[in-house]
């Protein structure tokens, strides 16, 4: 690997990492409230397709194209779409106390199915070429700072990304701070650890779960949008986001439920995922085999955490359980 390739490799890794980081930051907030949301892949897909829907309507309107407006519209649609999808999960698991695993899986089926369905309709309306593409919007999302390319290697490695990459890191840092250092974070953690205690302490458990899961869902959804708009340059493709959704869920474990570790973890995952073509001399099939690595690494981390059995590194204690105050 020569220098140029190395830089491209780093750029690619970081680009992909943003999707994973947003996805897993969202899932972390959700899990901190005691909800294991296996619907994350579905939410990411739904968020992404909502953005695409926004893009379709914006570009097919007669208004003059404005990059900023296109970003605002797609982002707004994405937030709305992922929020609505997450609300299905919230209503079922929190209000109706259904099983979280089953609900989450059903939500993934739903979200991925919906995104494929809507995607194919938009594709058809746009002429049925197989891809729904919005190159102008992709360009808007990938706009870098004007002086980024004048700063040599530093600029290439640190400043060559669209705004969402930085947004992802900022969100992760903020979430890490809120969880560890604020009253809200303390309350949130107590809801995930021991909802009965939180309830007795005067915390509205259901409200915390709703808000955390919805905020988490929106952040994950933005992760999906990032992938489509920035990484894939506003090209919609069916069935692409669920694997990144599951990788995001995996990243939560890898980062032992800490968003700041997830920043590094997402870059490692991103690197493992894109490294194939950069390893010269590797055949295509071996590159394919390399894609196993993020999953295997996660499994290893999972097993090690459980073997060491340290109290600080465990999942929230009531993760996956519904809470009912009058349970006897």
């Amino acid at each position, binding site marked *: 690997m020569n220098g140029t390739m190395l830089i491209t490799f780093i750029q690619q890794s970081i680009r992909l990492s943003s999707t994973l980081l947003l996805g897993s930051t969202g899932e972390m907030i959700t899990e901190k409230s005691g909800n*294991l949301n*296996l619907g994350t892949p579905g939410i990411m897909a739904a968020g992404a397709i909502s953005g695409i829907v926004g893009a379709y309507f914006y570009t097919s309107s007669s208004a003059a194209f404005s990059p900023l407006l296109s970003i605002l519209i797609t982002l707004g649609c994405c937030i709305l779409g992922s929020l609505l999808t997450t609300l*299905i999960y919230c209503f*079922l698991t929190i209000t*109706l*106390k*259904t*099983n979280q*695993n*089953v*609900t989450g*899986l*059903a*939500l*993934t*089926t*739903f979200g*991925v*199915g*919906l995104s*494929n*369905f809507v*995607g*194919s*309709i938009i594709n*058809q309306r746009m002429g049925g070429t197989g891809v729904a593409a919005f190159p102008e919007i992709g360009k808007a999302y990938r706009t870098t700072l004007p002086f980024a390319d004048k700063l040599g290697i530093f600029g290439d490695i640190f400043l060559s990304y669209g705004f969402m990459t930085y947004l992802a890191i900022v969100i992760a840092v903020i979430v890490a701070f809120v969880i560890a250092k604020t009253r809200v974070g303390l309350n949130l953690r107590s809801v995930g650890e021991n909802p009965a205690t939180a309830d007795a302490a005067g915390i509205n458990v259901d409200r915390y779960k709703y808000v955390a899961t919805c905020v988490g869902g929106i952040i994950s959804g933005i992760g999906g949008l990032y992938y489509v708009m920035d990484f894939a340059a506003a090209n919609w493709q*069916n*069935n692409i986001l669920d*694997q990144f959704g*599951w990788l995001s*869920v*995996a990243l939560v*474990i890898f980062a032992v439920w800490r968003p700041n570790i997830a920043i590094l973890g997402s870059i490692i995952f991103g690197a493992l995922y894109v490294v194939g073509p950069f390893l010269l001399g590797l055949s*295509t*099939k071996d590159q*394919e*085999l390399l*894609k*196993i690595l993020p*999953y*295997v690494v*996660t*499994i290893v981390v*999972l*097993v090690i955490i*459980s*073997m060491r*059995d340290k109290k600080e590194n465990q*999942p929230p204690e009531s993760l*996956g359980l519904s809470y*009912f105050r*009058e*349970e*006897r």
Partner: protein
Amino acid sequence: MADVRTKQIREPLIHITKRDDVSFAKSTVIHLIGIAVALLISSLLIVAITGQNPLEIYKAMYEGVIGTPIANSGINKKYMESIHQAAILLCISLAVTPAFKMKFWNIGAEGQVLMGCLTSAYCMLEFGGKVDNSVLLVIMFAASVVVGAVWAIIPSICKAFWNTNETLFTLMMNYVAMTLVSYFIMVKDKSGRSDLGIINERTGYGYLPNLFDRNYIFNILIITVVTVLMFVYLKYSKQGYEISVVGESENTARYIGINVKKVIIRTVAISGAICGLVGFMIVAGDKHSIKSSIVDGQGFTAIMVSWMAKFNPILMIPISALIVFLSVGSKYATSAFRIDNSIGDILTSIVIFSIIACEFFTRYKVNFRKPKGRGKA
């Protein structure tokens, strides 16, 4: 004035209490209402998309499931295909059930089935023509079952010894399996199309034979047997009893001298073995091909089927039939409109949402502010 009144009320607007067990009849009614609501939403959705008369839609869905023979197959009736699909979903649901009953959240059925498929396909390519076809089928069968079991045993060992979270572990194993299949295809495929097409198309090595001139009969027979065996195993066998005890309380299991680790590993192995068997049936009895999306999410759907049926093998029959028929029917009904196949997934999830939501009403009672006479639950 209403404002003042609300301030003075003494009960919250809605107050939820747990109820004693509901009768079977009541729970059935609740679930039927749930399914009816789901079907209504589904058909409204299709109507909204296609703009057709709902009755026409239902007719088309019925056609799609039972329907007329497919154009150029001659032998196959469409309903056989529908039944077969439902049977495959049923079988995966049966596979995950013993583990679930033990509260082992095996969501790796997708990967376990896929590994079964991979093994069968490998055997077809490797031994096809070298041994007698019946011997080949036996090898495929045995190898798939073993590989499926091994794929499930790995997380179960970690669960038994270190209490590793099996939900996340088995989830990851799915993707490892998918990647392995992609890799396998690339290794075996010399054409560079990344697609093996139909394996042994000319020779038919490793194909399950047709019975009574029909495809799928072999698979359906196997699945019938598995259903009956699973029902008996869970309800009447000592091992089935042990599974229930471990699932209800590991402490009780230890207390009466059950080797919990052994039961966990054994049960999950059975789960994985049946998944492997399904993989064999998909490849040898239906698709005669391999690709990483061959299981098509049925491993996940099966988890929901098993849960909705409350782990009762008999109840799983109508539920898997409902889901498959709805999905097949909706695809057929919308096919004229060039709509993406994923409409089936959307409808499936709507049905699942409604059925699991029903559970709330069987477990809890909703009390509104002014109860008009408090009936006993």
